[in-house]
């Protein structure tokens, strides 16, 4: 049966990993390619790189990072961050990415999803979505946020579930759901949000934002009905290894790859 995927994700700026990683070895904790190789050895099922470079003249650096990673690591790589056009997507895929993740650009121009899907195939197009609970809503609703950079972003005035469904209709092959409320808290993912989206779409859903311990990942996969989980700090700071996490999940009955 299909195993659940554990996916470390790295923020890359100017070709270097932001917030680094606590390595216990001599490896360069700031080099995304080194980190990719490390996580691959640790048992990561896929990798995600987010390019958080602000300026467009540094974009070619990211392409180099992707090329070098693709020459070294042979598991799926998704790249996101600042991709605005089909040409941007094409360059990343040509450089060696397997999937491209689009977020704000898709909200601003949803046709980007179908254009990408048509040219490269649905399986290459990942919709990244940042969602936040609407305070006081009952039943609970979430709205989509864009431009979620350093300043927290702003509401796009769209319902998250509706947006997920629309994106899939347009051709998104996978959805990464990031809870703004949970992100960085290490208190767990937003399980209701995950479950609501997972039950509404027929494509795989990836949980993002909130992992503090392996149990959070377990909840995301079970209560949240996610097909995969992204995690950053939980792995980056060496708090838990991917192997430990997978062993924990396996013991609790979750099919994982060793």
């Amino acid at each position, binding site marked *: *049966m299909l*195993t659940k995927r554990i996916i470390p994700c790295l923020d890359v700026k100017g070709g270097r990993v932001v917030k680094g990683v606590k390595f216990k070895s001599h490896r360069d904790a700031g080099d995304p390619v080194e980190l990719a190789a490390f996580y691959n050895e640790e048992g990561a*099922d896929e990798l995600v790189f987010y390019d958080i470079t602000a300026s467009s003249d540094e974009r070619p650096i990211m392409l180099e990072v992707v090329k070098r990673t*693709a020459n070294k690591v042979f598991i799926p790589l998704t790249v996101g961050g600042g991709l605005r056009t089909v040409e941007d997507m094409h360059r990343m895929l040509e450089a060696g990415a*397997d999937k491209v993740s689009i977020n704000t650009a898709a909200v601003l121009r949803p046709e980007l999803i179908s254009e990408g899907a048509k040219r490269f*195939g649905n399986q290459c197009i990942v919709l990244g979505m940042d969602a936040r609970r609407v305070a006081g809503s009952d039943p609970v609703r979430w709205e989509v946020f864009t431009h979620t950079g350093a300043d927290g972003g702003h509401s796009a005035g769209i319902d998250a579930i509706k947006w997920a469904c629309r994106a899939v209709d347009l051709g998104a092959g996978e959805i990464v759901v990031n809870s703004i409320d949970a992100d960085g808290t290490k208190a767990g993912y937003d399980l209701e949000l995950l479950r609501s989206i997972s039950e509404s779409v027929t494509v795989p859903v990836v949980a993002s934002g909130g992992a503090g311990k392996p149990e959070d990942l377990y909840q995301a996969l079970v209560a949240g009905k996610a097909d995969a989980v992204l995690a950053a700090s939980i792995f980056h700071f060496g708090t838990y290894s991917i192997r430990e996490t997978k062993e924990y999940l396996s013991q609790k009955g979750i099919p994982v790859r060793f």
Partner: protein
Amino acid sequence: MSDIAIIDYGAGNLRSVNNAIVRLGYQVEISNQAEDILQAKAVVFPGVGAAGDTMATLKNLGLVQVIHRLVTEGRPLLGICIGLQVLYSGTEEGGWYDCLDIIKGKVKKLPAGPKVPHMGWNQVKTKKAHFLFEGIPDGSNFYFVHSYYGEPEDKTLVLAETEYGITFASAVGRGNLAAVQFHPERSGDLGLQVYDNFFNFAGIKKK
């Protein structure tokens, strides 16, 4: 000209396949030229996307006859993902498209229920001993991403099966022809092993 030729018809995973083979230390080239493909000791037929589009592109590039020739001459040929699906008689993807008919059988949509596409690592259970899986533990995980699957009429061609809602043939083979639904170039070390096994079988030495 090269020991190994990857058929170039613009498929998305060309580069990954190339990287994997280069990494293993083999001489490889990407080409859509008949003479390069026909003189290679082994040919890899990659693919992602839709089988219907693939058939149209192959026809436009004059590659249909080339692939048929490889098979009738018994040349080592490895099909991957769409490169497996188009070997069948036809596909239901997009209605119906006739394919190469090298393996009798149809390509059908994975049944609704579980998420589609089938995306991620799943176990490949070998049905019989075969060079493609030499040294690879039975039930090892490989990376899949597809919404359709092929069903061969001749079950003796099934090398391995995988479960996703249904049990489907994840690897088929006949003589020097082998084809897999999963992506060996995305399946880590075991995936590289599949390529290595294939090229070893074809008698190709590393550089």
